[in-house]
């Protein structure tokens, strides 16, 4: 179709009717339209409505170009067509005036209703937003209070646990002290009875490197436990003199106390040229042990001691498990057969086992055996 009919957006059937009224359609379409509105009254009413719309469009100046020319050729050639156009123009003005004058109150009212509607919508929207915000804030506030209460209770529990922990620590310390006392007493009693203690089981690990043919006989530590041949206190003057003659730069290790003649205290060698500690071992002693001082409080459980000659030959070695006491500064070796240590210079190397299983050197001790 040439040109455009500037009317309201219409379906295709409406456009077909407009084209028919302006004579812009095809002959085949024309006959079908005509037959339709002749036989169907509704179709005829639609044609009348389309004609009315076309007249109004022309009266408003909405037709242009070919449409306007066609309309004038078809509708304005008759007086009736001109009359209808005149009415359309007058009616349009009357309707507009009616909107401005007569319908002003209702327009005002409708405007007011519109305004109220807009205000109502805004009010509802605002109220909804406020409700949502208040709800969220309330939830946040309640949640904050809950979390504060939980934090407070957690802190209280933590303080309580801390107190209990400290109490337990104090109890542990007390128990440890008691255990140390008991251990000391036990050692004393053991020393008194001169019976091998649990440490004597470490003698079963005693190795004799230099005398592999040595057989365990009645002079073994086990037998020594049951029938010690060691000298008992008090020391005879002769023995004392033997010991005392070893002065002149040589430390003489005596028994730890008069009740433990088999135990000799050794101090660790600070420097390689430190003088060895002279130890007078009675000939009738079948076994001896050493009390070693430690550079710091004992911290290992498993110990290993090797006795070597000054030339580096290993004489014997022992390993044992030490039941530790707090701030333990000395450690006693298991019993060592006296026959393994003939008179001479020796070095004892003490090792402790770390948590990863490796043995680390703690200290070495230089001593001299004299009969």
């Amino acid at each position, binding site marked *: 179709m040439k040109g455009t009919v500037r009317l*309201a*957006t219409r379906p295709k059937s409406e456009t077909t009717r407009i084209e*028919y*009224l302006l*004579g812009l359609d095809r002959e085949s379409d024309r006959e079908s339209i*005509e*037959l339709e*509105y*002749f*036989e169907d*009254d*509704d179709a*005829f*009413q*639609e*044609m*009348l*409505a389309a*004609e*009315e719309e076309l007249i*109004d469009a022309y009266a*408003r100046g909405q037709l242009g170009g070919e449409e306007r020319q066609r309309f*004038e*050729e*078809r*509708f*304005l*050639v*008759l*007086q*009736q*067509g*001109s*009359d*209808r156009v*005149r*009415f359309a123009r*007058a*009616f*349009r*003005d*009357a*309707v*507009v005036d*009616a*909107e401005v004058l007569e*319908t002003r109150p209702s327009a005002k009212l409708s405007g007011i209703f519109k305004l109220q509607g807009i205000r109502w919508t805004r009010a509802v929207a605002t109220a909804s937003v406020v409700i949502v915000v208040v709800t969220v804030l309330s939830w946040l506030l309640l949640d904050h209070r809950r979390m504060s209460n939980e934090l407070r209770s957690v802190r209280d529990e933590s303080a309580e646990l801390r107190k209990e922990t400290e109490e337990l620590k104090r109890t542990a310390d007390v128990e440890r002290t008691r255990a140390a006392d008991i251990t000391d007493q036990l050692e004393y009693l053991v020393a008194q009875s001169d019976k091998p203690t649990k440490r004597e089981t470490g003698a079963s690990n005693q190795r004799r490197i230099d005398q592999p043919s040595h057989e365990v006989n009645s002079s073994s530590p086990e037998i020594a436990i049951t029938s010690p041949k060691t000298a008992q206190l008090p020391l005879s003057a002769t023995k004392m003199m033997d010991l005392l003659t070893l002065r002149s730069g040589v430390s003489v290790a005596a028994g730890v106390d008069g009740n433990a003649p088999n135990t000799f205290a050794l101090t660790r060698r600070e420097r390689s040229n430190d003088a060895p500690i002279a130890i007078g071992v009675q000939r009738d002693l079948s076994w001896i042990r050493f009390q070693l001082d430690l550079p710091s409080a004992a911290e290992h459980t498993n110990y290993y001691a090797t006795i070597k000659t000054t030339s580096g030959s290993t004489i014997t070695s022992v390993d044992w498990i030490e039941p530790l006491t707090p701030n333990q500064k000395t450690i006693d070796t298991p019993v060592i057969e006296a026959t393994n240590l003939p008179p001479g210079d020796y070095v004892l190397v003490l090792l402790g086992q770390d948590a990863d299983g490796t043995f680390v050197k703690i200290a070495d001790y230089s001593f001299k055996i004299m009969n």
Partner: protein
Amino acid sequence: MTLTKASPKHEWVLTQEAFDQFLNVLDRDREKAGEKYEYIRLKLLKYFQWRGSDVPDIDADETINRVTRRIDEGQKVYNLKGYIYGVAKLVHAESLKRRHQRQGLDEGSLFELSPTDGDLVTTQYQDCLECCLRQLSNEEREVLTEYYRYEKIEKINCRKRLAAKLGVSLNTLRVKMHRQRLNLEECVEKCFDRERDGSFGN
């Protein structure tokens, strides 16, 4: 009075009996038949107008006469509307042929308002329109003005709202508004003719 049937040899003249027979074909009820007759005539009038006839009313009457004659002569018509349309096409073709035989279109047939009484006509016409609008009830006037107030999309929406408000279909509302507007047009034309005759008579 006894009316004789027109014989084919003589020019046929519409008689009362023939017309009654035609109405009887439209509807057995005389009053309904009369309404249908008016409606068919309007269709024919519009058909000839839309087809560009310069004498649509004459062509419409000629079509009805021919149909009435055929019925009067005993022809059985099964689809009256379709038959009427067929006769209308023939009448239009004859009318077109006669018009083409005349010398061109008469450009003077395009009516233009005289500039001397244009304003007067407009004012008088507006007054007649306002007078005819006042004859409607408030509700009728409000619905009519509301129906024709808007344009384009707003017009469609407004008419939908009106139809919903009145509880009728859009089609029913359109038919009703069209008839009311035609009545208003007729009222205004009559009023304007009276006023014009009165002012011209002065």
